[in-house]
């Protein structure tokens, strides 16, 4: 893209707030009542991480990222945003990284699990859906394992709770941080154009 420095963040917003929220509502409607299972799945991951079962935690988390890439970004988001395909591939990469880390990593023992990391994971699994349900409409609730941002937030906590080594933690956090930044910038843009 030429003269890329002349573009604002809002120039990359390709859809209206109405389209975004209808997409989320439609996606949630199609998947219901999988949300209940997704919350239980998230709680199981937290329990596994808390009890030093790092390998199992990361393998299950890899499955969640594979779904976010396929089920959300490829199947849904790609229809309305050109970045959808790239985001789907990026989620696939995160899934592969988690599998690789699960198979080769050194894990934190159950006695060393970081409380802030567990808090972060809980924010993704419990707080995020509750807040999105309360702030918006119930049909727009964002649940970890089904929507990108709560999954990314929970992943940051679970990676730090289970993984040893700064480099491994950093590598496994890059994509979740990017997904969070992209998602929150999109929401900010949607809010801005509504004002």
């Amino acid at each position, binding site marked *: *893209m*030429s*003269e890329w420095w*002349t573009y604002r963040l809002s120039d990359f917003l390709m*859809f209206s707030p*109405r*389209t975004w929220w*209808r997409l989320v509502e439609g996606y949630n409607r199609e998947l219901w009542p999988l949300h209940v299972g997704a919350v239980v799945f998230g709680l199981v991951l937290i329990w596994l991480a808390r009890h030093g079962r790092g390998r199992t935690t990361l393998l299950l988390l890899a499955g969640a990222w594979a779904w976010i890439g396929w089920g959300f970004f490829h199947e849904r988001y790609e229809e*309305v945003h050109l970045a959808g395909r790239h985001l789907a591939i990026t989620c696939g990469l995160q899934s592969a990284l988690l599998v690789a880390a699960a198979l080769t990593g050194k894990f934190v023992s159950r006695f060393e699990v970081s409380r802030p990391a567990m808090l972060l994971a809980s924010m993704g699994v419990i707080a995020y859906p509750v807040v999105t349900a309360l702030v918006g409409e119930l049909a727009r609730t964002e649940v970890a394992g089904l929507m990108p941002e709560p999954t990314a937030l929970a992943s940051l906590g679970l990676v730090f709770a289970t993984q040893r080594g700064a480099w491994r933690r950093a590598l496994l956090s890059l994509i979740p941080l990017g997904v969070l930044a992209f998602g929150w910038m999109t929401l900010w843009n949607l809010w801005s154009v509504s004002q």
Partner: protein
Amino acid sequence: MGLGTWITFNVGRDAAGREQSTQVMRHFVDLGGRMIDSSPMYGSSQDVVGEGLAKLNAQAKVFSADKVWTSGDGAAQAETSRRLWRVPKFDLLQVHNLLAWERQLALLQEMKAQGRIRYVGITTSEGRRHADFEQIMQRHRIDFVQFTYNIVDREVEQRLLPLARERRIGVIANRPFNEGALLRQLQRHPLPGWAREIECASWAQVVLKFIVSHPDVTCAIPATSQVAHLRENMAAATGRLPDEAMRRRMAEHVARL
């Protein structure tokens, strides 16, 4: 008055959004509108336009304007776009934002020579690459140019609009409302008394009449997903248009707000 599709028609597979877009096109055509503009860069918009036109059986009634937006195989992209629009051929194909323009403009000229499209154009927006734009307008045979022009973005009055007149090039004014931001600003202020003199009942009509009353502008392409807004926009293509003195007054008034 034309119809843009950026953001407003990108509704994905949402059936209600698609039906709403079809209704906008129905009223657009019924009110005498012809030119609809889209691009492969607009997400699902091309498909939404194509589905709506097919439902309305209006493919032959509209002036179909689309774009090539790739540094790769422009012909393949143009064919994909044509299928999405469900039209036998495009009236106008434009090089979107001058992306790979040397290659794509040559392709579009060839397609025109073969009768596969009627007209060739180039586009830019928000003041980008105006120097390149001017050179292309001077050195190549272009039928249409598309750039940003509205009551607060008037740089093109200096060089590009006079050049378009000199070279007999049609002008499509995009972003008439600056994606709604201009209207949101203007609507904080009361509609001035002179708006009645040019038969405007809203700020949207003031902004659109300012654009289409420029003698070198062929059409503006406001985008909307609301039938009520579409009707309001189309009304700006009727009634009295501002003369030069009124245009100056309009611009000065808006600049003071």
